[in-house]
Structures are given as C-alpha cells and as structure tokens.
C-alpha cells in the first residue's frame, strides 16, 4: 500500500464544527475504503499568499495515509464535488519523504532549532 499525503484548504466561511464535519466526512471516505490514516494535522485558519476564490484566508488540513492506488481518484472526485473545499493537493510519498515525516512527527526537528533551516539533517 502506497503512502500518500493530502492537503485540503476549506473556505474560511465555515464555522469550526462545520469544518470538522467536512474533515470527518473525508476521513470516513478513507477509512471505509480500506485506507489506514497514519497522521493528521490541523493547521486551522491560515493567511493565503494570494486570494483563492476571493478569500484571503483558508482552513488548512493535512492527512497522511496509506491507501491502495485506485482510492486516490475516488477521493479527488469527492474533493471536486464538495464546494466547501477550495483547493486540495494529494502527493505520493517516496521513502525519503516517509522517513522525513516520521522524523518530524517524532519531534526530531523541534529540539535543535537550527539557525539555518528547520529540516536540515546534518549527516554523520
């Protein structure tokens, strides 16, 4: 089962529980079709770099999951169908990305707040 990561941006007009309900809806789509959710991250309301659908802020949500390949097209059709989702991006993760995300969740980058960059892995 390939590992994927999907970021969705919901319209800021939603109330908090409406946003949670949309997220729950997509989570159920995933779990019903045999996907296994590895990690979920809620960035909440964030300012957009440019207006999307005439709105300057968006409600971000990130989901990392393992799923069979054909589920992705079904998931994206659901995204397109739901008009509360302004924008989405689904990315397949290779082994380096999976290792990076695992390190990030275990908080490996938080301790040493490197001056240069946060995700710098100094080798050796």
């Amino acid at each position: 089962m390939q590992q994927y990561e999907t970021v969705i941006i919901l319209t800021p007009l939603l109330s908090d529980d409406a946003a949670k309900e949309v997220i729950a809806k997509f989570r159920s789509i995933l779990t019903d079709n045999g996907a296994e959710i590895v990690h979920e991250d809620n960035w909440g309301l964030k300012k957009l770099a440019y207006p999307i659908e005439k709105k300057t802020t968006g409600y971000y949500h990130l989901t990392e999951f393992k799923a069979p390949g054909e589920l992705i097209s079904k998931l994206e059709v659901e995204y397109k169908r739901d008009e509360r989702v302004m924008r989405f991006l689904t990315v397949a993760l290779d082994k380096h990305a999976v290792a990076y995300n695992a390190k990030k969740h275990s908080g490996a980058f938080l301790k040493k707040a490197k001056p240069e960059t946060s995700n710098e892995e100094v080798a050796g």
Partner: protein
Amino acid sequence: MAREQIQYVTAPKVEDTRKKYCRFKKNGIKYIDYKDANFLLKFINDQGKVLPRRLTGTSLKFQRKVAQAVKRARHIGILPYVTDSLK
C-alpha cells in the same frame, strides 16, 4: 600614480571566488518538504521566482526537487506566484 586615474569603461568582472556547493548533498538532505515555507524562501528571489542553479549552486537532481516543491507550495497558497517584495 597613473594607476589611480584609470577609469574602467565597463565594470571589471569581479570573480565570485567562494566555491559553490550543493547544500543538499553536503548536509545529506534527502527530501524537500513543500509545506515548509521558510526553508523554500531561500530558493526564490524577492519576486517569488525560483533561483537558478548558477546562483544557488544546487545540483540538478535537487534543483528539480526544489522547483517541484516551490510549485506545490504555490498551488496550496503557501508561496505566492508573483509578488514584488517577498522578503
């Protein structure tokens, strides 16, 4: 004495002497996270455009990863497509 009076017609080409290196190979970074905006800011100029390899010195393999990460970040509204004063 005469040497000071020499005015160059065109600016003398000052050689950028420091050795450029690919920071990804040197630091052993394998994955460039498209969600990490302040890391990607190092690779775009103040108009939001991706910096060329000759300035950043990154290797071709990682320049493609950087460009793809920047384009993904632009798609989900983390980085602007074009702006005038980013930094």
